[in-house]
């Protein structure tokens, strides 16, 4: 189905999905190892809960996680959408260019060095991701622009090489550290304090806004690099901007919460099925849809085996793979 991308339609869809998100957030705040009734959730949010146990659970434990899920879900989904346009390939996901492997190398390296550096592993992960972004950019350039075939090759080779490095480094870590890293590698939304969210949120929002400004160029880019140039798009510049913004979003997401899979691949697809290929409509749909899906996945991760937790990446994989198979059959048939 295609909804024409007029300002009115875009705002209507964004509003509807935002309301859905608010609903999902409220319900998620009630769920967990301890059930908190909606009335108490509401009291806690409107600062009338005082120091009650419910308020602490809601505000200090669940809300930061849910906010992180919103940011990471939106970041990965938008990054996936952007990369699919850049690579002109609906099978691209945010990790295909090696960013998550770079982040993992950064995190493991910090853990291995131990001590104070270990606690700064999100920062180390982010640095790892950004170095990888730069490396793949330089490697993947061809004729002054990011031609999709050279970029994919550069990314896949880099990811593969980094995976080998990761395995090697894991042998150097203690068993306890390896378990910690394994959890992180699969995606874990539990570790970020509210303070870090204050840094994360503006950057994620700005990066998504930056991609939205490129939405009409992304539409034309889907026609092909030559055709886009003939229609007035500065192809080299747009490709570089999309690459950097998508990599930044992926790097931020992975550094804070590990490599949560399937979102960056599936949410753009589901978005295309719902609203079509026009990025002016697709980007907000993907962002909000990703946020909603990750909040739901995280809630499931927290509650399915309460009081212990599943890594959220396991939930997205278990839920995502059947959806992916279904989509594959649908398009093939």
């Amino acid at each position, binding site marked *: 189905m*295609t909804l024409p*991308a*007029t*300002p009115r339609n875009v705002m209507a869809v964004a509003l509807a999905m935002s309301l859905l998100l608010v609903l999902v957030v409220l319900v998620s705040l009630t769920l967990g190892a301890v059930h908190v009734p909606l009335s108490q959730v509401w009291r806690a949010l409107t600062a009338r809960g005082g120091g009650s146990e419910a308020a602490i659970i809601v505000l200090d434990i669940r809300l930061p996680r849910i906010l992180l899920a919103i940011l990471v879900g939106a970041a990965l989904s938008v990054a996936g959408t952007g990369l699919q346009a850049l690579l*002109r*390939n*609906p099978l691209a996901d945010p990790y295909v260019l090696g960013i998550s492997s770079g982040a993992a190398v950064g995190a493991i390296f910090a853990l291995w060095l131990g001590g104070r550096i270990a606690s700064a592993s999100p920062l180390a992960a982010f640095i790892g991701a950004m170095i990888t972004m730069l490396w793949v950019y330089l490697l993947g350039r061809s004729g002054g622009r990011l031609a999709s075939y050279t970029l994919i090759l550069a990314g896949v080779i880099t990811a593969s090489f980094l995976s080998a490095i990761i395995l090697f480094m894991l042998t150097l870590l203690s068993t306890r550290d390896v378990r910690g890293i394994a959890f992180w590698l699969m995606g874990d939304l539990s570790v970020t304090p509210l303070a870090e969210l204050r840094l994360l949120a503006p950057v994620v929002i700005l990066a998504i806004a930056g991609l*939205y*400004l490129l*939405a*009409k160029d992304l*539409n*034309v880019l*889907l*026609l*092909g690099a*030559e*055709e886009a*140039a*003939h*229609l*007035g*798009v*500065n192809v080299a510049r747009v490709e570089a901007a999309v690459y950097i913004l998508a990599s930044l979003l992926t790097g931020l997401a992975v550094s804070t919460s590990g490599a949560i899979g399937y979102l960056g691949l599936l949410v753009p697809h589901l978005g*295309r099925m719902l609203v*079509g*290929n*026009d990025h*002016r409509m697709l980007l907000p749909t993907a962002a909000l849809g990703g946020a909603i899906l990750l909040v739901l996945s995280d809630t499931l991760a927290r509650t399915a085996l309460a009081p212990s937790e599943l890594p959220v990446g396991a939930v997205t994989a278990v839920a995502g793979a059947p959806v992916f198979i279904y989509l594959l059959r649908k398009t093939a048939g």
Partner: protein
Amino acid sequence: MTESLHHLRVEGVSFRYPHFELASTSFEAHSGEVLAIIGPNGSGKSTLLEIVSGHLGPQAGKVTLDSADLHRLPPRPLARLVGLARQETILLFSFEVREFVRQGRHPHLGRSLFESPEDERWVDWAMEKTRLAEFAGRRVLEMSSGEFQRAVLARTLAQRPQLVLLDEPTANLDIGYQIEMFRLLRQLAISERFIAVVVTHELNLASELADELILMERGRCLAKGTAEEVLQPELLSRVFRTPILVDRNPSSGRPRVTWVTAPH
């Protein structure tokens, strides 16, 4: 496309690839004219078209449209003046036909993220002219290659360029659509005051509907002029490496090219 008349000047453009050279070529055209570039495969027609579009810089010479050097223009202003449509592959992403044609308005969107009512009017106009209005809600992926070619033409028309460049626009069209497309180009070149330069293998369509023909062979311009002047049997036989006969179309009187077959 504006009310004034436009003037295209291609002056001594040349280009050298490692294994091919386009020798210095010149021609001129004015609003309302349709120019056909003909010649065997590999004769440099597409290279010449790309240079004329401003997207490929000539190693010598220049191309000006109303005194503006096309190669020096930034991408967006260039796309407002020049529409270039080549062989395109239908892609993996499913656009609706109207969305596809609407992409032609991209150079005119300026800072705005969305199309204006005027943009939508030009999209409707382009689809009406190419008789695609009934396809508006269909998916581009579902079209036949001929229908897709009409959509590509519609997208180029939606750009409202002053110079329309088409590379084999009738390659997949049946003879009815071929004639219709060329006639449409001619009509629109006059009514919308643009200049059309078409690379084509259809020698007879070029003869009927082009104001000037340019014959290329191995990177050189061998002949330039009216159909009468260019469609000479000895010249064509040599260039296309097969005996060719030129008579007259009985209904129009224009030169008609046919090949010589031995009696069965």
